[in-house]
């Protein structure tokens, strides 16, 4: 039975309007869960005082694991005793976020029994997130989760739960099987996922095409994004249909091409595929007429992160094109080399992108044994990483003679 209902005039403002409201959801949970009721009280206090009242981190976890539980404590435990512990659990989501409704019901039953009953579906890491439980409930939750066939995800300085778009399961643009690769990486890196062994977090994110629906390029230490090597597939009669039905191909398709590689004469669309940067704009604008090429694979990029310790970074190209074939040995060999170099030389809380910035991409490539090539771009049309040592050697010879 929940405690006495709390007065929440400020939070009530966030229930108004037609849209879903987190306040409404917490209030529903608070009717039968004292944790959710105290959460409302503490949150109202934060709105009044304009400060948060959470403490973060600590020992919490389950035996043997160093990830999956994020310790959270109230700094007002006397006033809000039911949220004095309010730990978060990350549950490793199935690739592409596919669940049966039965599995979801059982997961929710576990959480109503052991926690606040509040969830994030899903957190920005990709995991299914259980919000708010006490330290003594962690082992029982973990036991019931594993009996149901689920496991904790990553947190801290470990391999974070790999995540991907729905790929070939639901999308015609997928250039490789994101879900198979995500499943493989999750299994292959189980030890690194549960036992933090790195200078800081390491994220794999897999997108099936350059639309990048999981925003891998902006968030993942290693972004694996589908692409193609041959020409965009084009159906001329479907292009004509788009024009007839009112699409302004010149303005909305050709005019928005960042590579300026398209021409439209009012009858025929021409694409200079050698200049295409695979931005997907034209394909998205006319999906019945255009499609990625048939020679499909993925591009591996490295080094993006959100701005926590230092500023935000976007990924840059490491391997321009790779055909993924199980058991993905080429990929795991590459990752192993990167992990070794970064673990040996990275500073505490230094993401691999920041490490590369500090040591220089040239030195990083040499350390991991990858030859620099012109396609290793930071963004289209720019490559700041290739240095022509022969040229500099010749120049210094000339300097000597001068």
């Amino acid at each position, binding site marked *: 039975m929940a405690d006495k209902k709390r007065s929440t005039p400020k939070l009530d403002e966030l229930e108004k309007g037609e849209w879903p409201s987190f306040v409404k959801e917490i209030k529903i949970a608070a009717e039968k869960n004292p944790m959710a009721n105290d959460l409302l009280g503490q949150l109202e206090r934060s709105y009044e005082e304009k400060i948060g009242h959470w403490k*973060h981190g600590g020992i919490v976890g389950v035996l043997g694991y160093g990830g999956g539980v994020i310790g959270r404590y109230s700094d007002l435990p006397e006033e809000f005793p039911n949220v004095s512990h309010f730990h978060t659990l990350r549950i490793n989501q199935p690739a592409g976020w596919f669940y049966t409704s039965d599995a979801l019901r059982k997961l929710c039953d576990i959480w109503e029994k052991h926690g606040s009953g509040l969830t994030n579906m899903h957190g920005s890491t990709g995991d299914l997130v259980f919000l708010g439980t006490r330290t003594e409930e962690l082992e029982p939750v973990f036991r019931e989760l594993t009996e149901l066939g689920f496991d904790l995800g990553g947190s801290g300085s470990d391999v974070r739960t790999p995540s991907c778009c729905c790929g070939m399961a639901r999308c015609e643009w997928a250039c490789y099987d994101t879900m198979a690769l995500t499943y493989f990486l999750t299994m292959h890196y189980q030890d690194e996922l549960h*036992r*933090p062994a790195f200078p800081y977090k390491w994220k794999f994110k897999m997108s099936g095409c350059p639309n990048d629906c999981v925003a891998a390029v902006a968030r993942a230490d290693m972004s694996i994004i589908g692409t193609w090597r041959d020409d965009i597939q084009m159906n001329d009669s479907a292009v004509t249909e788009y024009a007839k039905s009112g699409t302004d191909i010149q303005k909305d398709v050709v005019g928005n091409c960042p590579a300026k590689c398209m021409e439209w004469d009012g009858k025929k669309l021409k694409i200079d595929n050698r200049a295409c940067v695979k931005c997907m704009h034209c394909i998205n604008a006319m999906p019945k007429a255009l499609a990625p090429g048939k020679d499909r694979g993925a591009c591996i990029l490295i080094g993006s992160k959100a701005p926590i310790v230092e500023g935000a970074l976007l990924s840059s190209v490491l391997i321009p094109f790779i055909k993924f074939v199980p058991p993905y040995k080429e990929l795991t060999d590459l990752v192993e080399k990167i992990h070794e170099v970064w673990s040996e030389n990275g500073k505490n809380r230094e993401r691999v992108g920041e490490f590369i910035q500090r040591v220089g991409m040239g030195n990083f490539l040499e350390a991991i044994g990858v030859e620099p090539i012109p396609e290793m771009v930071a963004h289209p049309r720019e490559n700041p990483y290739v240095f022509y040592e022969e040229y500099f050697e010749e120049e210094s010879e000339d300097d000597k003679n001068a």
Partner: protein
Amino acid sequence: MAEQATIQEVSDAMYKMIKDSMGQKKWKATDLTKAVEQLFGERCDKALIKSAIRDLIESGKCVYTYFGGSFIEIPHKEGAEN
């Protein structure tokens, strides 16, 4: 070629390092790895060190903690809970 150290030897050495510097230094897995590599030299490799860390954690002698990054510590009553 020197005989390889045992998991127990390495995990005991790690435990001593953590215990002796408790309250002064927090150890990351990478720091422990480098320290025991130096201590045991050719007698241990990365796979052995990984097993020793796992032994340390699964025996309950040490736990993972999180303070901005992940550390390995001797279990204690944590400050945040107070």
